[in-house]
């Protein structure tokens, strides 16, 4: 019987890895501890290659778990318990060491001499060069992300010798090194990839889409799209400490209720990105560990659009900010998971971000501000939410609707299908009043402001423009964080943002993960599951 299955697997090379061994049938899921972990998620993985057009967010985990980057981030204690990546510490992954020239324009990386790809071939600087060339050339999201770190063209990358890789920058930037640790610039086995290119497909997009070729901690043992992805440990990995699990099964279960039953029963060891409600309830149970990590550099906001005339009046925007029932929203929509973003001090003395705004619920003041505005008699405005994000947007919108009615702003909730949301809110920027949730991968406030407060930039869905902000962001984006101009520039940005209110902060959301039979979960800014640090419980 087993023989037939093995033969089948060897002959059918499509989604299943050809060399894949049959699963150990004798080990039931709950007794699998020590060797195998099953994780469930509601998201679907649609490609094993992050660089491909149309690759969704859930698929980024393959780039994280199966490929290496030159560098990675360190680890720290997370605010909500458990572990988190540490933006302030850059650690080696494939690079053994690196040097940055005094002018900050040349970065020289020495690769680990013992690093090998899964096929046993040594990782060379040529592989790194090919992979970086690919990331800046394919267009779309990978190229945009590379650009954020000042990596634009293949001529910026050079392989000096087998183990030395050099990046030449147009200008020094504090964002370049962290940008090398995001999932995008991963190192591909260039020889395998090149052997699978065609004239129409010079970057082997079709091949790597289903067949990863890397040097990372895990190989893909099987992928059945829409059902499961099976990782198998690469015991020759040198990018970090050897992961605790030999085999990790990522199983897609769309229904949150089913995922909850599975983790409570302990048939799966990890449930990723669970709803806030389940997180709050599971937290009270013995045996299930819940980690709710506030997502760094991410804020759920209410955005009044400057295209809509009444919102050009500063008094109206401030009236909105004072009318919002913050606590009720935080408890109803987020079940208290995450961090409050209201009721902060009036004076800004540090550069911490996200930070509490100086606003709080004060209906009397809101009414006063409305009376002082040019729209004392009120007005009507649609309040737009995305159906794709309805779990937090819908309860929030209902509470906002009720509160705004008290200051004479009549809102009608407009529900926009997930597919149209991006176009309407971010690309066309045509929604007069809406909810928004941008989060920046690179964790500095100026990076957040670059995307969300600069005119014309994607997440500035309020059509906000302020000349001082434009200049401050341009001046600050690339200078080091210990530059004397950094802190004053950033605090000035905060002051303007809180005074002008193109985005009214509501709360900082959390990423919730439940574990039962596994431990050492680590939060990452990319909000996908990094299975490498996870170990069996009690190990």
């Amino acid at each position, binding site marked *: 019987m087993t023989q037939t299955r093995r033969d089948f697997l060897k002959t059918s090379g499509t989604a299943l890895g050809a060399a894949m061994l049959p699963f150990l049938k004798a080990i039931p899921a709950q007794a699998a501890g020590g060797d195998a972990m099953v994780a469930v998620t509601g998201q679907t993985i649609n490609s094993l290659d992050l660089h491909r057009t149309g690759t969704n967010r859930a*698929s980024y985990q393959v780039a994280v778990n199966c490929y290496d980057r030159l560098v990675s981030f360190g680890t720290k204690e997370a605010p909500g318990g458990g572990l988190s990546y540490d933006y302030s510490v850059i650690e080696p992954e494939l690079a053994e060491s690196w040097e940055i020239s005094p002018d900050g324009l040349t970065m020289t990386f020495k690769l680990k001499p013992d690093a090998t790809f899964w096929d046993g071939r040594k990782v060379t600087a040529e592989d790194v060069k090919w992979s970086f060339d690919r990331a800046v050339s394919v267009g779309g999201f990978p190229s945009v992300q590379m650009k954020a770190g000042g990596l634009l063209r293949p001529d910026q990358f050079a392989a000096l010798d087998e183990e030395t890789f050099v990046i030449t920058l147009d200008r020094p930037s504090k964002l370049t090194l962290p940008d090398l640790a995001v999932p995008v610039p991963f190192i591909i086995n260039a020889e395998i990839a090149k052997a699978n290119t065609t004239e129409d497909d010079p970057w082997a997009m079709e091949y790597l889409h289903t067949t990863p070729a890397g040097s990372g901690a895990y190989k893909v043992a099987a992928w059945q799209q829409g059902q499961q992805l099976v990782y198998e440990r690469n015991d020759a990995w040198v990018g970090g400490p050897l992961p605790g699990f030999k085999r990790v099964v990522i199983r897609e279960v769309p229904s949150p209720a089913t995922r909850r039953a599975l983790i409570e029963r302990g048939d799966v060891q990890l449930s990723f990105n669970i709803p806030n409600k389940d997180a709050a309830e599971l937290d009270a149970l013995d045996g299930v560990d819940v980690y709710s990590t506030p997502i760094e550099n991410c804020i759920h906001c209410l955005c009044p659009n400057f295209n809509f005339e009444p919102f050009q009046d500063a008094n109206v925007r401030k009236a909105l900010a004072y009318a919002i029932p913050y606590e009720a929203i935080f408890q109803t929509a987020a079940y208290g998971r995450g961090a409050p973003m209201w009721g902060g001090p009036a004076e800004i003395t540090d550069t911490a971000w996200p930070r509490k705004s100086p606003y709080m619920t004060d209906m009397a003041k809101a009414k006063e501000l409305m009376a002082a505005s040019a729209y004392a008699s009120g007005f009507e405005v649609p309040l737009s939410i995305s159906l794709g994000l309805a779990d937090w947007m819908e309860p929030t919108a209902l509470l906002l609707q009720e509160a705004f009615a008290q200051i004479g702003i009549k809102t009608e909730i407009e529900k926009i299908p997930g597919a149209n949301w991006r176009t309407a809110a971010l690309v066309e920027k045509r929604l007069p009043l809406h909810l928004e949730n941008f989060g920046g991968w690179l964790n500095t406030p100026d990076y957040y402001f670059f995307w969300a407060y600069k005119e014309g930039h994607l997440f500035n869905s309020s059509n906000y423009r302020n000349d001082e902000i434009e200049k401050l962001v341009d001046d600050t984006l690339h200078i080091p964080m210990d530059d004397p101009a950094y802190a004053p520039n950033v605090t000035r940005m905060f002051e303007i943002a809180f005074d002008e209110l193109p985005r009214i902060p509501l709360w900082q959301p959390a990423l919730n993960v439940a574990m039962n039979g596994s431990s050492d979960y680590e939060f990452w800014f990319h909000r996908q599951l990094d299975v490498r640090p996870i170990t069996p419980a009690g190990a």
Partner: protein
Amino acid sequence: MSRRLHMILGRVAQAIPVLFGVVVISFLLTRALPGDPAAYFAGPAADAASIAEIREALGLDKPLFQQFLFYLRDLARGDLGLSLSTGQPVMQDLAMRLPASLELTLVALGLSCLIAIPLGVLAATRPGSWIDHLCRVLVTAGVSMPTFFTGILLIYVFYYLLGLAPAPLGRLDFLYLPPPSVSGFYLIDAALAGDWQAWLGAAKQIVLPAITLALFTLAPIARMTRAAMLSALSADFIRTARAAGLGQGKILYGYALRNALLPVVTTLGMVFSFSLGANVLVEKVFAWPGIGSYAVEALVVSDYAAVQGFVLAMAVLFVLLNLVIDIAYALIDPRIGLS
């Protein structure tokens, strides 16, 4: 017999204009959806230039008519295009997901018929008795409970509380390997491969979702059987048969049921087609990789190729189904020809 074959071929030929119409309408309807797939698939941090690049890569910058011609050309080659949301060729997606849905629906319908038809017959022969009331209660309960609720309830009781059912993790627990694909139906393929462990695994997985779906489809079949049996039993030929002294069994099953089956088969066809598309919720709850959830996901992200492929596959399926029902009519009732 060759006349019958001729008729069947005629029926298939009649389906061609229908299918062409479906192709045109599904193409136009997907384009009429307000979403912009290029913006959606450009990813979270894309700018206008990268959205334009993607639009070009997808061929969406071409005029509509040209897009349609390309689509027809690909279709003629048997290429349904590439689904953006799953990253797989639509043909491959359908080949994987359609059997999953069909297997679930057929098992559920089989189960449903096994309960509903005898129940309907019994209720019709003893109207007003306790079995008639039981039938009514079961039918009302089955219809009035939404499938996702029944599904979650069954998981809660049989998996979470009692631990009798396996983890609701799709078609096969990850401990088993799927059997070599012949028909795509795990129960058939595993049996063909002689892999009884995988067969048992697949059978265990299908029990709860099939019961969920069966409870929902029970009602129309049982009601229709009861009504058709009642009218058949009060017909003249039954009275004649009774007068002629035929046995109760012969009357009930040989004459009444056979006549009552026609409307039941019609209902069955309708129930089959709607449950194939409508079991999205069951698929979601049981992580079943079926066609319904595939279509819904594709619609949500304006995944043109996937939606068109789904509509076309369903249209073909409906044409075949109608053909099968027509043939079944002719087999049940010799008075009905295929003309």
